[in-house]
């Protein structure tokens, strides 16, 4: 399955544990577990070099606690596009828990939500089944460029940007240029490493 991360297309290397016994899985596999599996398997997951956690909308973000220190990826879920709990989960994972790894939106999302996702701390999306990944990558960039700025501070103010008008919380000229330059000409770089793109 393809993912779009910061406007670029990648093959998804992650495998969901999906109820299997982790003992039978190659420890080099990037392994995605849910909160229940995380609790149940605890130490046996230590041998995996790369661990991701997937959250359901009803999960409490603060339950991730210290686990986040060794987690590379948190996937948040949209059972339907209008179930917006994942927006708050992503925000809390970044802001309250200080997570710097990948936050990936999965499930039913609309391209019209990409801006909200990006501004809420999500940097990757799972491309919906059967949809052309390139067009989602393009949409990520074009949506990021749609507005020159926003009225409220969120998670899209990158370190390398100086707001043109830094007056208080109501105005942010959050130039999304960094997103745009990444994506231009860099569509469909399948299989490349996608670590470290978060410039929060």
């Amino acid at each position, binding site marked *: 399955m393809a993912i779009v991360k910061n406007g670029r297309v990648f093959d998804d290397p992650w495998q969901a544990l999906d109820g299997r016994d982790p003992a039978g899985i190659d420890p080099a596999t990037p392994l995605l577990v849910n909160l229940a599996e995380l609790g149940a398997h605890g130490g046996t997951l230590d041998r995996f070099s790369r661990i991701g956690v997937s959250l359901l*909308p009803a999960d409490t973000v603060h339950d991730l606690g210290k686990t986040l220190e060794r987690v590379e990826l948190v996937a948040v879920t949209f059972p339907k*596009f*209008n*179930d*917006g*709990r994942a*927006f*708050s*989960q992503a*925000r*809390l994972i970044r*802001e*309250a828990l200080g997570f710097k790894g990948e936050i990936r939106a999965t499930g039913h999302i*609309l391209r*019209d*939500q990409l*801006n*909200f*996702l*990006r*501004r*809420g701390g999500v940097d990757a999306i799972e491309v919906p089944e059967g949809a052309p990944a390139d067009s989602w990558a393009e949409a990520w960039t074009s949506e990021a460029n*749609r*507005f*020159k*700025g*926003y*009225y*409220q*501070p*969120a998670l899209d103010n990158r370190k390398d940007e100086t707001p043109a*008008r830094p*007056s*208080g*919380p*109501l*105005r942010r*000229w959050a130039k999304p240029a960094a997103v745009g330059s990444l994506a231009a000409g860099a569509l469909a770089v399948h299989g490349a490493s996608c670590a470290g793109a978060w410039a929060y």
Partner: protein
Amino acid sequence: MYAYDAFDHAFVRERANEFREQVARRIAGELTEDEFKPLRLMNGLYLQLHAYMLRVAIPYGTLSSRQMRRLAHIARRWDRGYGHFTTRQNIQFNWPKLVDTPDILDSLAEVEMHAIQTSGNCIRNVTADPFSGAAADEIEDSRVWAEIIRQWATLHPEFTFLPRKFKIAVTGAESDRTAVKFHDIGLRMRRNTEGETGFEVIVGGGQGRTPIVGTTIRAFLPKRHLLSYLEAVLRTYNLLGRRDNLYKARIKILLAETGVEAFTEAVEAEWERIRDGALTLPEEEIRRIEAHFAPPLLAAAGPDPAHVAAKLEHRDFAAWCRSNLFPHRVPGHAIVTISLKTPGGIPGDATAAQMDAVADLADRFSHGEIRVTHEQNLVLADVRETDLFALWQGLGEAGLASANIGLISDIIACPGLDYCNLANARAIPVAQRISRHFSDPALAEEIGPITLNISGCINACGHHHAGHIGILGVDKHGEEFYQITLGGAADDDAAVGRILGPSVPYDGVVEAIDTIIQTYRSIRETDERFIDTVRRTGINPFKEALYGDR
């Protein structure tokens, strides 16, 4: 009033362009109706019984004359020559075509208007005191804060797919004219012991099928923390609000199910984490917004003999002055409410010609500014006493001089089954019949202050729960029936009305209301308002009068 700068202009245009693309994708079949629905709703576009309906935002109900003329233009060009002012201080157009809506939004953007978040499960148009900046009982202009909230809430990346719609009201006066306790969040300006102004935060009020008066979760919030506190409330609601049942998804249900204490604790804990962060409002930011709402310079004046003479000479004018004026903070001035409740007319409706006329009168007599009230009337907030007679004459020429503000024919009504696909029964013709029945101004004045609100279904858009008399349309085996409640109130003593008894058929409503009014007139004490009689006697005398012989 607030004036757009380059940032606001660009933002609203970018948003209109986005919607144009979305409409094109819908027409091309790239978006299903299910997917298009939340997108169009967040731009104010509903699909009603007969046609699309476009709800245009009038932030906190304040309009310039130029904007009012543009609304008239839209009514003429893309609708059927009229518009409907709503209980959220907005305006609705009932007959636009889908393909025209991007052009309408462009036309609105030219005059600093939009339809952003007038619908959908997001933060809706923030309402405020329609007498802001002018009322004698005001602490501070509530529109400053409504504008700050409007900006913060606009396309908020986290709170655009909430469990359900979210309504915020702000009042800055001693008397509440915004129904602050019937909102998801009501903000009421208060002064603390040090004399500093801030907000009492009231949460979880609402109407619909579960009417609840809001609960105060914080007695005093310093103003600079307003946005971080709102963010904490909204985040708590977004994460914990129910999504399994449409009818239990509002914040009032969350509050009831978790308990006020636990809910408040969750909000306060989150607020503690973020309170001194990026959302803290710097003083200069508050000043920047405040400057937009600087009141016009008005010279105090003593009583005008010509005005007194005109009242003696024209009894209609005198009656209008008694019901439609409110004390202004500057002597020699008045706040004028223009009634959109012509007896026999449709509550809240105005024709394009009337909108133009109000715009002209606002230019001549009230600094070019107009307000919309949640009771579906219009306000000119800064009129000199010497101009009142000429204004009244001008209103008369436009068919807008009804002298009935706060009286029985000043009815709030939703569009009901004439337009709305949720309605069970008609609301407009019921309002028309009642207002015609009580159209004698002397009778209405003799009955005195009263609110009568009508909803065509349990969603309560006509605020029937909060009316001194409430009328709710229900469907009984395919026939329209109406349930009557007494004792509701939207003011400082907010209360939910109590059901009087079995519902009455469509043809029996006027008679039932007449019986209630006659009962009141026979049992009231001297100068006792209708609501005070109901509070004193309870509903039994009315119940007996209405159902006693059955």
